[in-house]
């Protein structure tokens, strides 16, 4: 059957199970928008393409399905770049579709031409410039397949206007044909056997779990492994929610802003089992001093992660869930563990804490958020101090309930991502914990949440500073606060001017009531929490130090 490229695109999206796309129109996507006009697909019009990219990313993180964003050529496409890089760093399945100038004008610096496949080469898992409408259906099939299989990631498809506006015979393209792409999901039995032996011989095992556990749906297996070994589980920022935070074996987060007991456990363990992690520098800090006495097992689907940052003793390459199952099958449960008892003592001795002083403290705000929501909502954060407080003082029990920009650390991610999470989870409460700096980077999306009545609750941890940078200037630059004091609008009025509800809370005693009020409101709510301005995130590993040398 003859179809236009744009119709083929819509048809292909539907065939991939896409129900929603986030986008922004322009000249080079006119044929696509014409097809969307009466397509059986929900399109959310954001107020900035960056918002669309982060929303698609948030949608993917919450649902596990690829998020889809759409933008026009040139500036529309370049506005997606931060969002694509963000998804790439955190291995999030996403398909970004961009319009492009007509094929005859390619490479001529034509109006609104940007070489977006060139620009996104290092920040996509793969990308395509489709020059022939005949290739469109096959390309889309491949793009979705690549985005969601193996180690997930963003794929970009650049479609010139004469391709989306051209016509071709459409038939389902069948499975993706990719001779250069294969995913090894089954771990090598010999490596599994070696891992099992090392585990059996260990006395002080620690599990170090990351975003791969969530991407790979391995949280149940992780729990079983920990309980069999009575081993503490330290998660990365990306791994939060992959292991129940209130479980006695949970030691919270490790690394630069980890808990002392997690970092002590890693420093003294004799076996470190890395599951879906990449030994990022924010976790390891001084590499030579990271888990110095430990045998290291590294389980990951991406073979290139093995040995990239640290030498690994036993690599297990495969799907993390599958690999953990294979390992667990061979293990006998431990009945007691002095190591576990030691860690329980550390937990009592070195709790994560803060000092109350009568002024509103960010930690109290977040704890109260937890109490009111009982840890049952989807939390989406921005980047900065508030992100770390959200990691420390809210407890995450289930995967995909803590959504944050880990690898790229993108300020401005939180709110549009929360919008995408709300679209993916219409029946759940979505709580965006943001900073006054971060929120101002994409606050225009208030119009979007109001327009679509996406009832996101936005808590602004407002210190009047780019707080995380201020903290570094305080600690390492003699309190020379250089351009970190940041003003903003009256956030309550800002919310109201968009048609959302705004609330301001300046006393601890009002936090609970305000949160409950926000939950009752059927639409989006902004709560401004003016907090103690110079509060620091502690504990903290100064850069270049071993992770057990913590301040605070």
């Amino acid at each position: 059957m003859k179809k236009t490229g744009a119709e083929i695109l819509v048809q292909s999206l539907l065939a991939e199970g896409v129900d929603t796309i986030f986008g922004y129109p322009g000249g080079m996507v006119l044929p696509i928008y014409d097809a969307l006009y009466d397509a059986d697909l929900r399109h959310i019009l954001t107020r900035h393409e960056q918002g669309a990219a982060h929303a698609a990313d948030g949608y993917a993180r919450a649902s596990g399905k690829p998020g889809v964003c759409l933008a026009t050529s040139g500036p529309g496409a370049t506005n997606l770049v931060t969002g694509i890089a963000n998804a790439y760093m955190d291995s999030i399945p996403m398909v970004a579709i961009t319009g492009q100038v007509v094929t005859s004008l390619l490479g001529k610096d034509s109006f609104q031409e940007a070489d977006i496949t060139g620009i996104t080469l290092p920040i996509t898992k793969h990308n395509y410039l489709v020059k022939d409408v005949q290739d469109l259906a096959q390309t889309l099939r491949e793009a979705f397949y690549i985005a969601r299989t193996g180690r997930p990631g963003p794929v970009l498809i650049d479609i010139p206007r004469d391709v989306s506006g051209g016509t071709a015979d459409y038939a389902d393209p069948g499975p993706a044909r990719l001779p250069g792409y294969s995913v090894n999901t089954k771990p090598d039995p010999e490596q599994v056997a070696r891992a099992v032996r090392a585990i059996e011989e260990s006395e002080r095992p620690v599990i170090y779990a990351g975003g791969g556990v969530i991407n790979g749906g391995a949280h149940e297996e992780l729990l079983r492994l920990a309980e069999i070994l009575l081993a503490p589980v330290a998660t990365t920022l990306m791994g939060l929610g992959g292991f129940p935070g209130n479980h006695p074996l949970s030691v919270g987060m490790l690394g630069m802003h980890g808990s002392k007991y997690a970092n002590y456990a890693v420093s003294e363990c004799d076996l470190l089992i890395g599951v879906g992690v990449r030994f990022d520098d924010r976790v390891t800090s001084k590499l030579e001093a990271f888990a110095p006495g430990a045998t290291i097992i590294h389980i990951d689907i991406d073979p290139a992660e093995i040995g990239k940052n640290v030498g690994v003793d036993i690599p297990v390459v495969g799907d993390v869930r599958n690999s953990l199952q294979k390992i667990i099958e061979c293990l006998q449960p431990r009945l007691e563990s002095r190591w576990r008892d030691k860690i329980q003592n550390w937990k009592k001795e070195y709790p994560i804490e803060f000092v109350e002083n009568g002024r509103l403290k960010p930690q109290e705000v977040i704890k109260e958020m937890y109490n009111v929501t009982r840890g049952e909502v989807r939390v989406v954060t921005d980047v900065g101090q508030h992100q770390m407080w959200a990691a420390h003082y809210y407890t995450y029990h289930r995967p995909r309930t803590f959504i944050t920009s880990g690898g790229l650390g993108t300020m401005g991610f939180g709110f549009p991502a929360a919008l995408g999470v709300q679209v993916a989870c219409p029946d759940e409460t979505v709580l965006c914990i943001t900073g006054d700096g971060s929120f101002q980077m994409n606050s225009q999306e208030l119009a979007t949440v109001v327009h679509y009545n996406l009832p996101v609750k936005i808590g602004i941890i407002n210190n009047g500073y780019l707080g995380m940078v201020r903290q570094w200037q305080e600690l390492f630059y003699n309190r020379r606060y250089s351009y970190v004091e940041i003003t903003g609008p009256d956030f309550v009025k800002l919310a109201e001017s968009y048609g959302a509800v705004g609330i301001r809370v300046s006393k601890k005693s009002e936090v609970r009531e305000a949160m409950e009020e926000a939950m009752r409101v059927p639409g989006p709510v902004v709560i401004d929490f003016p907090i103690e301005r110079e509060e620091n995130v502690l504990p903290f590993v100064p850069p270049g130090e071993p992770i057990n040398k913590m301040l605070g």
Partner: protein
Amino acid sequence: MRHTLAVLVENNPGVLARVAGLFSRRGFNIDSLAVGRTENPDVSRMTIVVEGDARVLEQVTKQLHKLVDVIKINDITADEYVDRELVLIKVNVGPAQRGEVMQIADVFRARIVDLGRKTLTLECTGNDGKINAFEESLRPYGIKELVRTGKIAMLRGFKYTGYHDNGTKEDN
């Protein structure tokens, strides 16, 4: 140590940029890279000479594998293989010295491909060592211009770095 990689890639536009970008981004050192088509019109072959220890090589190989357009990678360094490179050299020689240079060319089985009033252009193929020696022998005459293709290589005997369309990525 220097390693010679035979890399089969899909003949897609942009594949060279992907490979080159990967090397520069991750700080891998390319000594030479030669690319051309193969017996299969959909597949090109790159011969990449890269410098690095075992750990670097492991990363190079694994990162290359992650490129969707890369079908197969073969580190042939330790195998028996034939390698060739072609060089074109233009030297500053007038009629007086032509004889001498032609004798050198003879020794290296090089050919004269162009003759000008004051220049002579020679072509020579061989492995690295031979090409380097040839270049050194001509240096005293004054090399005006030199261009090398980069090395291409092929395994000896029955072994080969072929591509079988069974839908999987191979790694020998």
